[in-house]
């Protein structure tokens, strides 16, 4: 099973072009960080409530992304006992680009992607990641479609994926336009169910609002 940071990198890749779908870097950083935090929560390394995030087990998982995030959070929790989810999210987001690179390496090693180097206009170097094995992408899409278009109670992993897909505005890659409109209340309901997911949605929306504001005032 892929980790959430791997899942989100894979879901953000356009299967046919092998390029990342457009997403502001700062939003990507929040989503990547949220993916790592939610993975740590499902591995019982951290726990959260309405006020704070706690590291409850510092045992490494043998995953170089999750273990780095866990170690950073443990360091923060040594200094203070009132770490908010949002603060933890922004802290882990600082290294999101490095985590994307590691996740890509792993997906290539798993035989899911391949790296393709090329040139644009004979000058600019380009790098693409065409999907060789899209079974994982298809399975996630099928599972999320089933959950979003029914009253089926999701499992905790589905809730995390719905939060991440929604924060990246990727729901349109899972549902058609008409389905998306009908499923909007359901998405709203499910994405609330993970407190870290709520913080991801909030932070991603705030970041996008700042980007829009900056774009209109420059």
């Amino acid at each position, binding site marked *: 099973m892929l980790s959430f940071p791997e899942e989100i990198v894979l879901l953000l890749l356009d299967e046919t072009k092998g390029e990342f779908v457009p997403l502001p870097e700062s939003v990507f950083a929040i989503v990547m960080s949220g993916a790592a935090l939610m993975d740590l*929560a*499902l591995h*019982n390394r951290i*726990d*959260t*409530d*309405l006020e704070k995030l706690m590291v*409850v*087990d510092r045992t490494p998982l043998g995953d170089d992304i999750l273990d780095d995030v866990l170690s950073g959070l443990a360091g923060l929790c040594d200094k203070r006992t009132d770490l908010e989810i949002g603060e933890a999210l922004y802290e882990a987001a600082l290294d999101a680009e490095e985590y994307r690179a590691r996740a890509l390496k792993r997906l290539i090693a798993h035989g899911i992607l391949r790296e393709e180097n090329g040139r644009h206009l004979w000058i600019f170097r380009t790098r693409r990641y065409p999907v060789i094995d899209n079974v994982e992408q298809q399975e996630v899409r099928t599972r999320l479609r089933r959950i979003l278009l029914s009253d*089926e*109670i*999701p*499992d*905790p992993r589905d*809730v995390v994926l719905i939060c991440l897909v929604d924060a990246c505005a990727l729901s349109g890659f899972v549902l058609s336009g008409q389905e998306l409109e009908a499923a909007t209340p359901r998405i709203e*309901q*499910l994405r*609330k*169910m*993970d*407190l*870290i997911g*709520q913080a991801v949605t909030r932070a991603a929306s705030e970041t996008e609002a700042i980007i829009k504001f900056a774009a209109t005032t420059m």
Partner: protein
Amino acid sequence: MEISQERDGDVVIVRLSGRLDSSAAPAAEERLSAALTGDPPRVAIDMSDLAYISSAGLRVLLVLAKKVQQQKGKVALGGLAANVREVFTVSGFDTIFPIEADAAAAAAAVR
């Protein structure tokens, strides 16, 4: 945390006391799964002595709700303290579970 259970006809009443957090979650998940004995299962969870619930605790309840749905059973919660109720409201878990005033009302809701 302490977990106890009793049977009232075809309803299993599970009482949760203390804190349902990451340290209590594994045992709680096991005990709640074991409460799904009927066909279909009918479970009332008495939370009147539950002082705290974290995300890990919510996940235990989500897994339980999914299993109950798969077995076409019923589950309801009763007696939530205000702080626990707030967690259910903020997380939208109050849309998954019927929430009753007390254990007796929760048991009646699943009959």
